[in-house]
């Protein structure tokens, strides 16, 4: 699992780990718990481009449908095929093996994100 304090967070419950111009994106453990058991994940194709703030994927649980928003614009470098094959990994390890996509971003394009404290406050401390 990543060091949670180094991650960026969005109000849509995504986390972003930035390493140079590569951003790894997933949904938070809180989001996974709210969804319930994840049973289907659809992710953008490698090589495609996603736009900040736009829906770029879907995460379905038995109960409901969640949308994955691109927290930044950029080219999709890689998607996590293990999660597509076994969506339960999102519930089991949301901040680790359950990552979803890697984007090549312009560092400056990462818009308004929350730090750990801000995200914890957003979820009422229930992370």
């Amino acid at each position: 699992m990543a060091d949670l304090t180094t991650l960026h967070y969005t109000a849509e419950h995504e986390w972003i780990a930035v390493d140079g111009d590569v951003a790894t994106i997933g949904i938070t453990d809180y989001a996974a718990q709210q969804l319930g058991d994840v049973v289907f994940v659809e992710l953008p194709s490698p090589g495609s481009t996603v736009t900040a703030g736009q829906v770029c994927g879907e995460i379905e649980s038995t109960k409901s449908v969640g949308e994955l928003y691109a927290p930044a614009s950029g080219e999709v470098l890689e998607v996590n095929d293990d999660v597509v094959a076994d969506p339960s990994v999102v519930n089991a390890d949301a901040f680790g093996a359950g990552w979803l996509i890697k984007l090549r971003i312009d560092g400056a394009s990462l818009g308004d994100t929350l730090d750990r404290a801000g995200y914890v406050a957003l979820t009422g401390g229930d992370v």
Partner: protein
Amino acid sequence: MTGPRYTPLRDRHEALGAAFTDFGGWMMPVRYSSDLAEHHAVRRAAGLFDISHMAEFAVEGADADVFLDYALAGRVSAMAVGKAKYSLVLAESGGIVDDVIVYRLGEHRYLVIANAGNREAVAGALTERVADFRGADAVRDVSVADVSDAFALIAVQGPAARGILEALDDIADLDRPLTDLPYYAAAQGRFGQWPLLVARTGYTGEDGFELLVPAEAAGDLWDGLLAAGSPHGLVPAGLAARDTLRLEAGMPLYGHELSLDVVPAQAGLGRVVAADKQDFVGRSGLGAVVAGDAPVLVGLIGEGRRAGRAGYEVFDGDRRVGEITSGALSPTLGHPIAMAYVAPPAAEPGTTLTIDVRGTRLPVTVTALPFYRRAH
């Protein structure tokens, strides 16, 4: 408007780490561990459900049977003491106010169990119908009391359910043994010092029991069942599992498959209506619905893992023919299932239709309900 309500088992759910959700104004456990684990436990062993949010009405008096024949769609008076019956509260229009289970507890004593979200609607309907039924001089002997707050209802569902109840030492003085209790029948006895009603009913498609006790006894019964059931694989199960279980079993849910805008025949519940009864509320409305024209409830089976959900549109070619009312990826069957209202020409089992899943058309096949039937 008052705040959210909790059942007498709130502290048990919190201690078990349940996540809560609002259901009909009640804060109910949606899951304890995992929706899928709880679902599978009910199919393979057993699940423990708090259904204390449901509403209970005591209907009593020498004319109670005639009254219920008038107030409900079914012929309640034909039921033997100790039996249960699925029935409907209809509006004058023939639309469905609620679906209920009626227990005949004595010659002149009934219990009507209604959905939590429809408590006020059912209370209002029964109260009004009692007044109409009694007439101006109140010559008929029947009373209706909302006893919802006095009782707790706990369900044990799954193939291990009977063994679990038999392992619970505090159940005593049953007026018939659990082994002889048929489906849709109830036994009366005691749980410790408390009165107990054990009914072989449920909402999951499995064998199972629903236990009614005074609210004060709820905690002890819950604890006792968990202790007796754990060796049998019993786990507490929340509303999420309950919903996928009932969907697989093809059981309608009020607000999804059932509403005031739907008459029983559309929902496949024509058999619940005793149309040969002399008079009952809703009878005149039923005749006004044009047969063969109104949408009817069907099952839809999809491929892959992406499920249609409530509100998604159903198409036959380019023509919109209906709408999904409930849908999920079936945990037991492994493919998407849904219930939908479609126009009668599209309702024939085997018909291939499409559903619009957020902009993508996916093929589905019409099928008879239920999707899942337990092996006997």
